[in-house]
């Protein structure tokens, strides 16, 4: 299947989900007023990918800001990844946060406690 690539804006993140390499990335700011509208094509793409995922899928989340509306949509993304992992495929989520951004670290820890997928916190040192 074709990768899904969406360029970032001042309110929405860049998306690069490459089904050939198994490397997915969400990067930037995710603060749209209507996040469901933004994440809908991404979750639809994942629904297709879930039918025949690669043996290993690596997911990098590098968010600077995200609003609470996006937090629900990101959880939907993770729940799809959890389904892939439950079907005995390797999935890892790398959650990047800046060294003094405790809020972003805690947000990653929240997801880690909800989603049953190997979760790695990666500190970005300036």
């Amino acid at each position, binding site marked *: 299947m074709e990768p899904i690539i969406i360029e970032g804006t*001042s309110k929405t993140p860049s998306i690069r989900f490459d089904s050939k390499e198994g490397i997915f990335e969400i990067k930037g700011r995710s603060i749209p*007023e209507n*996040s469901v509208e933004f994440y809908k094509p991404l979750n639809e793409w994942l629904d297709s990918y879930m039918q025949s995922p690669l043996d290993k899928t690596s997911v990098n989340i590098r968010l600077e800001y995200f609003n*609470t509306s996006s937090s*629900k*949509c990101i*959880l939907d993304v993770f729940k799809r990844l959890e389904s892939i992992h439950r079907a005995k495929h390797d999935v890892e989520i790398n959650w990047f946060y800046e060294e*003094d951004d405790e809020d972003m670290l805690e947000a990653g820890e929240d997801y880690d406690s909800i989603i049953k997928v190997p979760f790695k916190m990666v500190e970005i040192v300036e």
Partner: protein
Amino acid sequence: MSFDLDNLISDHNPGDAIFYFKGNIDSDIINNVLDSIEFKLITINEHPRLRKKVYNVLVESLQNLYHHADHVPVGFKVGNQEKYGIILMDKNNDGYRITTCNFISNFRVNELELKIDRINKSTMDEIKDLYKDVLNHQEVTDKGLGGLGLIDIARKTGNKLEYKFKKFNDAYSAFCLSALVNEEKTD
């Protein structure tokens, strides 16, 4: 004296107002306010950690305003504005205070007050648990609203949410919400 939302925030004893807006609330205004305040915080060389926290709380406050402000009640003279509100940010020795004011239907007042009081009575650990519970279990609307905004503001600031209601008529009240973002709570 005519009814004015400004009356509700005049006794907040604000410090130096670094941003003030009064008028119609739409997506473009939200974007402009976010850009403008972020630029100001960078210009005054605010510490990146505090700047980021202020921006986070600002995003939630403005989007609460955008999504939850009810229409301007008949009889309130502001011209042809669909959603009227105030956005104020001031700075004093305690930190940055972000205040939003808008109209809401009276039938929503009780529920909103109960929600804020529940958050304010919770410990920080309870707020974190509440956030996770709502994140994981509450259905989102088709606009992506999931009832997390106020909980997130309380969690990120570590401070009580301050609020006021003032009845405008039998159908509508004015509602003001303030959140203090300060240095101490960012450690």
